[in-house]
């Protein structure tokens, strides 16, 4: 029995255990197929693949669901990036964060003292 790995978007997507051959797939050690699923294949080297987080949005650009995949062809919405919050909107191809109005903290100071402790030398002509 041979084991072949089929790639999707350069990442292991399906494994086949067969006595024959699978065209266009990469042969690996027999029975080891599951290990290579969701692994990145580049120049003969397997490595960990990055998980892509993307959003499903409504007509107003609001996030209605966040999904994850290893395969770029399965990304069907704008990719989530650092700083995007659940109430962010996708507007004209960019993420726009909502504006939050923070409470104003008012500092109360003691009145400034007059010129005590100052040693002013006045000059008279």
């Amino acid at each position, binding site marked *: 029995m041979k084991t072949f790995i*089929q790639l*999707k978007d350069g990442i*292991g*997507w*399906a*494994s*086949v*255990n*067969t*006595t*024959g*051959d*699978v*065209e*266009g*797939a990469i042969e690996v050690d027999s029975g080891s*197929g*599951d290990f290579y*699923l*969701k692994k990145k294949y580049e120049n003969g080297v397997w490595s960990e693949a990055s998980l892509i987080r993307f959003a499903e949005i409504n007509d107003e650009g609001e996030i209605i669901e966040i999904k994850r*995949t*290893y*395969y770029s062809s*399965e990304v069907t919405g704008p990719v989530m990036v650092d700083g995007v919050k659940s109430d962010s909107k996708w507007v004209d191809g960019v993420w726009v964060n909502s504006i939050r109005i923070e409470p104003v903290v008012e500092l109360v*100071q*003691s009145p*400034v*003292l007059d*010129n005590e*402790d*100052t040693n*002013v*030398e*006045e*000059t008279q002509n």
Partner: protein
Amino acid sequence: MGIATFPAASGGGGIKSVQRGSAASAGNVTITAVDIAKSFVTVFGTASSGTVAATGAVGGPTGTTSATNGDLLGRNAGYNTGFVNEGAINRVMGSVNNPSSNVTLNAVNITGGTNNLVAAIVQGFLANSTTLTVSGACRYEVVEFA
């Protein structure tokens, strides 16, 4: 009321080949060519769908917070008297005198929802002699008879 006649057994041999494997998501799996008229597919979904509700409590710390008593030093802006520029002068602008205060966060319960995470229904079929189409993450087996 039994079955009067049974269909005659057709000729043919046993299992010619078995192919097993896994798919990470929906799509077409390329397999070694089989005769689809003499093959069947078994698919076992490994994907899940739905949500899991959480029930529990979130606890908060209980303790005290305090500020150091003392003077608050400030610096008034320099100004020009017309004759002498005084420059900046350090002054005592006020004081800090915050008594200790208790900080208590009550535990908050998390409730709601239902536990309805279920195995997603995944199906598969042979689109042609070398293509197995699956509708989601699964393990599959293609059995071809002689």
